[in-house]
């Protein structure tokens, strides 16, 4: 018969960790998406040469392992005497990391809008900003959404690395319980299930939107 030492309060401990994971993910994805929108528009608008510094910086964020970024950022902020709480450092690093990927998603989606369609919009007298707002963004959103959902789900899982800065998020809570209860299999299954429960609605929301757009367009 199956038996476990996991109590209700242990489960609440895991859910608290999950709350931390959600909080870090929320700030990282919100910040990263806003920055990604800004950088993506710049990338789509200016020439490769003009965007070179931006491309370089974003490439750094994409190619250096997230763990190294977190540890270095935390060390630098300490040396600089910023006294940032680990939660803030984590959110900033993850947001920049997210923005590096989001920029490419946004750029690709904007460039997927046919030039002729944009010319048709401008030829009607719409300004650049109106063209962006009423034509380009709505059309680009449909292209970008699947990748953006993938990015969000990825960041939620990658956010586990903030445990290295001492934040007790979902995976770290699981580790603590594993150490105490010595039931790694069962606890990891529970932790995995909680990750799934958090990811599923986001994935479904994306699927729903895509389905609705497909029926219309």
């Amino acid at each position: 018969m199956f038996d476990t030492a996991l109590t209700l309060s242990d489960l609440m401990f895991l859910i608290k960790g999950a709350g931390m994971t959600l909080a870090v993910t929320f700030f990282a994805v919100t910040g990263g998406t806003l920055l990604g929108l800004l950088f993506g528009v710049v990338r789509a608008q200016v020439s490769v040469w003009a965007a070179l510094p931006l491309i370089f910086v974003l490439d750094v964020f994409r190619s250096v392992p997230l763990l190294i970024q977190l540890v270095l950022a935390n060390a630098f902020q300490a040396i600089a005497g910023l006294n940032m709480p680990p939660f803030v450092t984590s959110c900033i690093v993850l947001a920049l990391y997210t923005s590096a990927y989001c920029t490419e998603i946004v750029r690709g989606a904007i460039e997927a809008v046919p030039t002729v369609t944009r010319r048709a919009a401008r030829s009607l007298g719409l300004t650049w900003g109106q063209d962006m707002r009423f034509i380009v963004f709505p059309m680009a959103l449909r292209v970008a959404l699947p990748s953006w959902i993938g990015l969000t789900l990825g960041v939620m899982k990658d956010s586990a690395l903030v445990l290295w800065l001492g934040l007790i998020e979902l995976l770290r809570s699981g580790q603590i319980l594993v150490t105490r209860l010595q039931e790694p299999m069962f606890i990891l299954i529970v932790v995995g299930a909680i990750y799934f429960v958090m990811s599923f609605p986001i994935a479904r929301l994306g699927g729903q939107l895509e389905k609705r757009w497909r029926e219309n367009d």
Partner: protein
Amino acid sequence: MIEVKNVHKSFGTLEVLKGVNLSVKKGEVVSVIGGSGSGKSTLLTCINGLEPINSGSILVDGVEVHAKTTNLNKLRRKIGIVFQQFNAFPHLTVLENVTLAPRKVLGMTKAEAEEIAIKQLTHVGLADKLSVYPGHLSGGQQQRMAIARALAMSPAYVLFDEVTSALDPQLVGEVLDTLKLLANEGMTMICVTHEMSFARDVSDRVAFFHKGVLAEVAPPEQFFSDPQHPETKEFLSNVR
């Protein structure tokens, strides 16, 4: 009046317009014919300032299109343009496609814009498609919607850039009929086209675009029966 004066335009080292001259009076219909890739479409996109030019000048009602001080967004209100393809805004219904610019550019209320849009859509025979998304329209219907969208801005001039070239043959007729309707109503039009019968029957003048210049501009009777330029003769003998 549209006046194109000695316009030169290059893409990199490729010079596509090599001193184009053309003037189009109010109420006139001018068809521009010529080989593919010769720069006919570029001429149209230069006229409403979508493309910069290298030298020369283009004046629309006396306003120089490429002058730095010209407000292009304002000027474009009176120059409609319909392209060969991808004209539709796919995320907006037919009615929203047509009302967008009157609302956002001219500042009309939703009701005012819809009244005009419905009038123009009825005009091009799409009154029963108002709430349909463009993806559910045929190519010919999409082009007619694009025409209605341009007309909803009450332009003084409409430029047509090979609007039937991307259509299935059986859909060409409905779009040409719409163009004929506009021409008969006195709309000023410049039509880049490969439809010789349209050029012959509807235009006041036909222009032959060849090697970066308008080699010959003449009324259709003369253009098709007695072309002066040897290249025009050769082109016409090939298309007939």
